[in-house]
């Protein structure tokens, strides 16, 4: 491990944890440095809401606990950011949408509750695509978060990916030690890859969805985003666990994820799915993929050629199932009980129409329309039901593959960060950003994106490890080995406080 940096914001979460534990640093100091970093990084629009006072109070409480010898563990006193899709009690929660104007929930999401119980400190709520629908952060009502990276010799702003783009941007710019994200079809992994950080989508059911604004309920899953695999392991330990309030939460013990980082992957069988070699894949991504495999091989893993024959159908199935669920999940934004209400006209129907017309952005409307269409009488079997069957087959593909391998290696995204506005008018091109992340989402499997290299223009690229259900440990272990080998030390153009 490298020497601990003097600037607290440039520590990893693990380093900060150690510095807190051995008394080199107080949570108050660590948090103060981050509050300033958040302020100085405002140009990135990574945060929608900053909560410096709450951060300060929480930090003081953490320090007081530590002084009394009552530290709550590795996250006690550690400042983190929360994607603004998690409901936080008495703190504005927007989901990146105008329709939730002024909504401050009277309840806390289970995942954030667990984090606060573990002593984590809230810096604020991070930007996201509206209702987590997007791969660039450009659909946020609060303006697109920017990527702190720039192409070499080109200062035009780039997207941080999405939908957890604000969390990714904040962590990459050293304006948070870690952050929560949510991943429905790639919303943790793709922004992690595009901003040169690490992000893990856990197994569906590993983290509670209670209190997370729903996009597509059968796919949504909360997960950690941080600068290292170890940091993600620590954060996941604070987020995961059974929750009686979420009927899809799975009651299985939470292992010590950090302890899984043994560095020993000898004999690990790494599957390479041939169907992921899509047409037109940039050469540098293909090379990086091979490089990743070589790193794992060098550490004693065995490569296995595998087949996931239904991969081709994953993206279309995803873009039926997710909008279908979304069209229903978003029906509650009707202007009656919370958030925006537009009262044009006098009838209830007019209020609905005006509220939803003004409250939702184009991408959300597009998906609500698609979802309504695929569920409607006469089309249900052709679209939604067919997509569910495809989903089952895709899960079967993975189950077959895991008879031959322990973990699957693939690129995270078919491209590096792109320019703001570049794909904004081409939804299909935008959807193609999810081509490598969606299959694991449909199958509910854990998947980790690790920064592995730079493209020709100096932008980060990520590699993805997909594991068996509830085998986050293997994914993290292999990820850490790859991370070490990649030795990714490049830094974004913008680093807070420098």
């Amino acid at each position, binding site marked *: 491990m490298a020497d601990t940096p003097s600037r607290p914001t440039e520590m990893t979460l693990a380093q900060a944890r150690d510095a807190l534990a051995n008394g080199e640093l107080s949570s108050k100091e660590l948090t103060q440095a981050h509050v300033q970093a958040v302020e100085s990084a405002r140009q990135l629009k990574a945060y929608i809401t900053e909560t410096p006072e709450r951060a300060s109070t929480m930090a003081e409480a953490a320090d007081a606990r530590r002084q009394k010898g009552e530290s709550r563990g590795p996250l006690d006193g550690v400042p983190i950011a929360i994607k603004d899709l998690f409901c936080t009690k008495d703190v504005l929660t927007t989901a990146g949408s105008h329709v939730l104007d002024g909504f401050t*929930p009277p309840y806390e999401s289970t995942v954030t509750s667990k984090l606060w119980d573990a002593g984590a400190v809230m810096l604020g709520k991070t930007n996201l695509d509206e209702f987590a629908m997007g791969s660039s952060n450009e659909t946020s009502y609060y303006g697109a978060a920017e990527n702190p990276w720039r192409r070499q010799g080109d200062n035009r702003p780039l997207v941080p990916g999405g939908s957890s783009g604000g969390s990714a941007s904040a962590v990459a710019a050293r304006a948070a030690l870690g952050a929560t994200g949510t991943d429905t079809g790639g919303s943790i992994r793709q922004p992690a890859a595009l901003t040169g950080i690490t992000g893990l989508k856990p197994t569906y059911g590993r983290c509670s969805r*209670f209190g997370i604004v729903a996009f597509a309920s059968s796919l949504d899953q909360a997960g950690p985003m941080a600068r290292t695999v170890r940091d993600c392991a620590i954060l996941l330990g604070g987020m995961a666990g059974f929750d009686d309030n979420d*009927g899809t939460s799975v009651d299985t013990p939470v292992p010590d994820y950090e302890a899984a980082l043994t560095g020993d992957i000898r004999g690990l069988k790494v599957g390479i799915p041939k169907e992921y070699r899509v047409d037109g894949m940039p050469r540098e991504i293909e090379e990086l993929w091979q490089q990743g495999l070589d790193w794992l091989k060098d550490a004693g893993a065995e490569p296995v050629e595998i087949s996931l024959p239904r991969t081709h159908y994953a993206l279309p199935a995803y873009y039926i199932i997710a909008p279908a669920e979304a069209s229903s999940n978003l*029906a509650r934004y009707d202007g*009656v*009980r919370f958030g925006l209400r537009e009262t044009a006209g006098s009838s209830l129907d007019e209020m*609905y129409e005006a509220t939803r017309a003004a409250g939702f952005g184009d991408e959300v409307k597009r998906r609500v329309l698609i979802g309504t269409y695929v569920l409607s009488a006469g089309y249900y079997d052709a679209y939604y039901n067919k997509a569910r069957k495809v989903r089952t087959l895709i899960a079967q593909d993975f189950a077959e593959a895991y008879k031959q391998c322990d973990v699957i290696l693939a690129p995270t995204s078919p491209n590096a960060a792109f320019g703001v506005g570049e794909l904004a008018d081409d939804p299909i091109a935008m959807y193609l950003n999810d081509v490598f992340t969606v299959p694991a989402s449909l199958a509910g499997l854990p998947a980790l994106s690790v920064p592995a290299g730079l493209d020709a223009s100096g932008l980060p690229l990520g590699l993805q490890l997909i594991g068996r259900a509830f085998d986050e440990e293997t994914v993290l272990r292999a990820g850490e080995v790859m991370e070490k080998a990649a030795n990714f030390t490049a830094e974004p153009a913008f680093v807070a406080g420098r």
Partner: protein
Amino acid sequence: MADYRLQGDTGEWEVVCGLEIHAQIISDSKLFSAAATEFGAEPNSQVSPVDAGMPGMLPRVNQFCVEQAVKTGLGLRAEINRWSAFERKNYFYADLPQGYQISQYLHPLVGEGTVYLDMPDGSVVPVGIERLHMEQDAGKSLHDQEPGKTYIDLNRSGVGLMEIVSKPDITSPEQAGAYVNKLRSILRYLGTCDGNMAEGSMRCDINVSVRKPGGDLGTRCELKNVNSVRFIMQAIEAEATRQIEILEDGGEIEQQTRLYDPDKRETRALRGKEHAHDYRYFPDPDILPLIVENDWVERIKASMPELPDEKKQRFIDEYGLSAYDAGVLVAEQAYADFFETLAKGRDPKLAANWFTGDFFGALNKAGVELDAAPVDSAKLGELLDLIADETISGRIAKDVFEEMWETGKPAGQIVEDKGLKQITDTSELEGIVDKIVADNPDQVAQVQDGNQKVKGWFVGQVMKATGGKANPKLVNEILAKKLG
């Protein structure tokens, strides 16, 4: 029982009905949240964030509600599906906070069953149950609180309902009424629904169609929310009559949803085609399929009370009651319990007659429930004992009962205080009879000429003379002797 037929210009018509009953599950908390369910609470005082459809909230299946629905399914002699699923029924309404109702659609918890109707003529009519599924209730829109505004009360939002769907086996208003009463009785025995139609804990939708006897099923119309047995019966007749008129005029029945107006005794269309809903049902991704284990069902089965049908048969076998009397007595568990306490060690027919006769009459007159009656089964039993040991006659007993009802005093005391004890002293009665015979020679002659009616007149005279206290059996014996 004669088939119910409506007479049209072209001949007789048959009515075919299927009923959908929404029965509110008795449970302290809602189907998917821990909020309370008590009726009549302050508006919006029993609403959890789940019931209000707040962002990020998730439903959590209340196992007790599932148990209640399984129990009900067993009570309807229906198959319990070991695998069932909740789906979302999507539509917008101001009192539907989520924008969808969580219901069961393709895979209900309970499958086919049978309910037996006890008709007034003692016949038993089987009605098939198509299915029973669970769903959540919506809130209430209050349009009358302030002009131009609608208020929403979400107390009811999320309360668990059982939708019980009958097969189209009901062929008369009378059967429909009997079906609702029987279902209500079963639910109340099971303790799974209080069956209170006035409070809306049991609501009824009726599908009505008409056809020529034995012909193909006609197009049906659905009558929504008909909320009393009387209105259900009226609504069916009104709707069937409307359909017959249209058909006989050469028209066609448009399948639609209608409301019954009890004031005008007619039905009218609720919404036109432009508001026809496409509910876009799909499996609720928040709720895993419901898997019911066999031994759990067996445990529930073992905990079931004796239900009306079994109890009725037992009353017929054990107490020798008529099917009709037994049916009346088992309609309410409380009636049946009252009767069994009353009949214990007594003549069951006498007990049944008194309970369904004078006692029910008094209850109805006073408009009170059984548990609020001033006479309980022990007190009524005491009265029956006085009849049985001939302390008082049945005739006097009626007066004593009235007094008991008014004052709450025990029968024995009333008989004592008022000196109503029956005269069973033969010589005393003979004296009275002798005097009457002596005073009325003309009537004696009539009797001797064979006019039996006049014999009754003598009985009346003796009763009059004794203030009704004479033992009627003795009086008859003495009169027979004296008048020859």
